[in-house]
């Protein structure tokens, strides 16, 4: 499973009500190319803050499920956010970390996620559900379960590196904000 295959599985598992926050770089680009929608908040900069933006939305809209599509490089920049999420334990937050053990958007430099078990960090921080998946079938099953159960959940998806590069997100930042805000 590579990045865009994993994102496709996540998007297809969702209904119409769920809100999505996508990390900057290739994750946002892939999501925009695969299934653009007003409910997608594309991060263009502010690397590392996807989980925090997702937390703010989840706390403000407790009746909506919020899915964060994150990367290993991103979450490693803001591991403290796992402590904050664990301590507040919002039931409606699902944190999906696509882990290729590299900064793929910038040329594939290695990250520490080969040795740092991000799912274990989440578990130790108080997430109610933590999973580590390697294949599409398991990802589908785990997502279905997380959408039904109380979170916070962290799903660590081990993915292969790939060479595919989707086009840049073309919306103006204010447009991304406005479309999302009226959802």
């Amino acid at each position, binding site marked *: 499973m590579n990045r865009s295959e994993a994102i496709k599985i996540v998007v297809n598992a969702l209904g119409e009500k769920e809100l999505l926050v996508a990390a900057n770089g290739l994750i946002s680009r892939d999501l925009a190319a695969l299934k653009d929608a007003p409910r997608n908040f594309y991060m263009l900069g502010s690397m590392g803050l996807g989980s*925090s933006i997702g937390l703010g939305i989840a*706390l403000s809209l407790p009746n909506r499920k919020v899915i964060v599509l994150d990367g290993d490089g991103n979450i490693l920049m803001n591991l403290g956010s796992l402590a*904050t999420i664990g301590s507040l334990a919002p039931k409606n937050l699902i944190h999906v970390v696509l882990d290729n053990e590299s900064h793929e958007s910038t040329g594939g430099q290695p990250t520490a996620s080969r040795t740092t078990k991000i799912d274990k960090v989440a578990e130790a921080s108080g997430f109610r559900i933590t999973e580590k998946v390697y294949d599409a079938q398991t990802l589908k099953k785990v997502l279905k379960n997380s959408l039904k159960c109380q979170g916070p959940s962290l799903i660590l998806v081990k993915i292969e590196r790939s060479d595919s590069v989707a086009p840049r997100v073309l919306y103006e930042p204010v447009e991304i*904000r406005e479309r999302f805000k009226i959802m």
Partner: protein
Amino acid sequence: MKAKDFCDLLKQQGFNFFTGVPCTILKDIINFLTRDNSIIYVPATREEEAIGIATGAYLGGKKPVVLMQNTGFSNSIGAITSLVLLYKIPMLFVISWRGYKGKDAPEHRIIGRCVLKLLEDIDVPAQILTEENCEKAVLTAVEVISKQQTPSAIMIRAGIINEQK
């Protein structure tokens, strides 16, 4: 001014979601907010994280405030420029001003000297809170936020706000 009066003023202006990292100057405000069940206060691990949380809160329909020390503000300039200013996310920064006029512990002196210039350089308007202008400073900051859809800052020096006053 009492911390309670300052918080009430913010709440009257519709602010209902607070997040940040404590500072000695902000302790009475944050202690008050932590006990207040009518609003949300989220303790963050870093100021940059608080800025992300506040952005999410705005997207979710809240009116957010980020409380942080000037050092924390300087930690967060990347998040402010590439998220808050880029997407024009309205939010209030309440920034404690350590190192004001160089009279502080050594670690605060440099940032104390240049914090206003940094705010100005990234186009975040700042109001400096005094004993006399409290209400006016808050109202001006609120006006900037709603008119320009940008963040706006209130700078608080030591001794201006505490529990006893």
